[in-house]
């Protein structure tokens, strides 16, 4: 994915360089130390999320190994099974570190999945609006504007209040909330690109609409989409955590980081801080890392910034 990103950028900006496009992109990106830290953070988080079952000391959802006697152990204490709970255990006796690894997997999975589908939907709708223009464009943008005039949390609240809890339901809610941002972004870029000569040339060659839109227009609209996509994944993770915290997001059987924080909240006032704090730190680390990467991508992919 990153490789094609680099190529797309170079094509649009038309920069000539001895380095290969991908190398050029990487070296531009690495000029900022904070951005490198962000990228490493994202890689660490993604690694943990993908390999959670192998990295976790215990399986927090295997009821046979979870012992209620272990509940609310402070960080560093030993559980009945002999495993040390480095960041403590929760109210049901689950090892928090394992619960966090699995929670991260769900949070990241939901965020990435909804972001990806929203991107697909938004791109199709936005390109249609920009390419055909006229009434189609007006109708689509009316809907987009109308939706963007409501805050994301309110739309998610309406949807989840009507749909109920569940992984599939929250993914649907997040897609509905996010697609409009992608549609607006891609339409804006595509409107500019559409007037350029290469699209005119493609039209003169009597290429099909589909070919022009997907092979010529879309690749040139990618840079801003990648930036918006990165930022949207971070905000989707944050929104999912918020909704799960409110108890209207994910069901208890699939606890994301937000639900872990929510579970720990009731114990916090009695001084058992670790149940809530550590998942919170993990959530924060994830969101901040993704945002740092997004911020840097915005700078690197912006052809108007002189470097």
């Amino acid at each position, binding site marked *: 994915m990153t490789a094609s990103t680099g190529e797309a950028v170079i094509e649009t900006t038309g920069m000539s360089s001895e380095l290969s496009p991908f190398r050029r992109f990487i070296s531009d990106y690495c000029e900022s130390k904070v951005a490198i830290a962000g990228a490493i953070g994202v890689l660490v988080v993604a690694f943990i999320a993908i390999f959670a079952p192998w990295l976790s000391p215990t399986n927090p959802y295997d009821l046979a190994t979870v012992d209620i006697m272990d509940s609310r152990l402070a960080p560093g204490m030993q559980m009945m099974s002999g495993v040390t709970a480095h960041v403590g255990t929760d109210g049901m006796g689950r090892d928090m570190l394992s619960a966090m690894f699995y929670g991260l997997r769900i949070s990241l999975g939901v965020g990435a999945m909804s972001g990806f589908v929203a991107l697909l939907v938004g791109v199709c709708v936005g390109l249609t609006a920009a390419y055909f223009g006229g009434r189609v464009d007006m109708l689509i943008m009316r809907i987009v504007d109308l939706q963007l005039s409501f*805050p994301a949390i*309110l739309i998610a609240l309406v949807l989840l*209040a*009507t749909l109920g809890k569940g992984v599939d339901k929250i993914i649907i809610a997040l897609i509905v909330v996010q697609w409009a941002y992608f549609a607006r972004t891609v339409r804006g870029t595509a409107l500019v690109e559409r007037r350029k000569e290469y699209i005119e040339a493609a039209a003169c060659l009597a290429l099909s609409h589909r070919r022009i839109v997907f092979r010529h227009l879309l690749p040139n609209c990618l840079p801003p989409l990648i930036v918006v996509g990165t930022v949207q994944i971070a905000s989707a993770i944050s929104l999912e955590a918020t909704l799960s915290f*409110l108890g209207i997001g994910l069901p208890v059987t699939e606890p994301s980081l937000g639900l872990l924080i929510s579970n720990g909240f009731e114990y916090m006032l009695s001084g058992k801080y670790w149940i809530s704090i550590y998942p919170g730190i993990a959530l924060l680390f994830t969101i901040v890392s993704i945002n740092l990467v997004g911020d840097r991508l915005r700078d690197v992919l912006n052809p108007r910034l002189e470097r």
Partner: protein
Amino acid sequence: MSVFIIRRLLQSVVVIWVMSLLVFGGVYLIGDPIDMLINPEADQEDIDAAIRALGLDKPITEQYWFFLINAVKGDLGSSFIFNEPALQLILARMPATMELAFAALFLSIVLGIPLGMWAGLHPNSLSGRSIMTGSILGFSLPSFWVGIMFIMFFAVVLGVLPSGGRGETTEFLGLQVSFLSWKGLSYILLPAINLALFKLSLVIRLSRAGTQEVIHQDYIKFARAKGISEKRVILVHVLKNIMIPVVTILGLEFGSVIAFAVVTETVFAWPGMGKLIIESIDQLDRPVIVAYLMIIVFMFIVINLVVDILYSVLDPRVRLQDVKA
């Protein structure tokens, strides 16, 4: 002009109607409130009586029709749990939410404008850059997590502020308010700051951008050339000019403050509308869910409508475009 307003009004009515259909239809499909509300030991006769009393035995189209007719009359059904009209239940909790929202707006203006102006006047200083970094954090940190940290730090570790609830209230113009007593203030302080953080970051960014733009304008140079003191230049000439966009945007954002109050109220157990809706979703109290969603969507549509009309008054191009389309 009147054509434009009538069109916008009609559009708003259509949006409200579509919302009512969506919300009512969706909420009907969630689950079975009968299981939740009726004593499991009740016999079939009691269950039937309760279903009839709640109007759940009628077909869904008929239930929706009654809902629509009653909604126009201002009756949005009665709560299954509290056995009170849903509208009253929500309106009774509205002042608490409104107080919190206004407190948050007040804080974001009072803190945000000076901080943003400072960052705009000293963009390369350490303090200026710290303010901007802080505003990025305010945008990206999930507000429920910040709220939990506030409770952790101020209520659990330091023990100086209460962890939640509303505490005592004083009567003011017939409403119960918190901000008139020290005790009440200590309860509203944390939730208000928590709710304000997002808007505060927004105000900081707007005022910084505004300051940097205004400071290079000719009238500022002229004021300085006239020998007006720097304090007066900044406090009068710069401040007045950056206020316009800030106030416009905050007015537009008021609805979203109310929507976000759901999160803050849940974290701090603040007895407002937001906490009520979360509890109602938990208990499948359908009339309250429907009423809340309708009220908040209605508020949004009114805010958007007023803004649209004001814009069209200020900028004739907007309404011309619309009539042509």
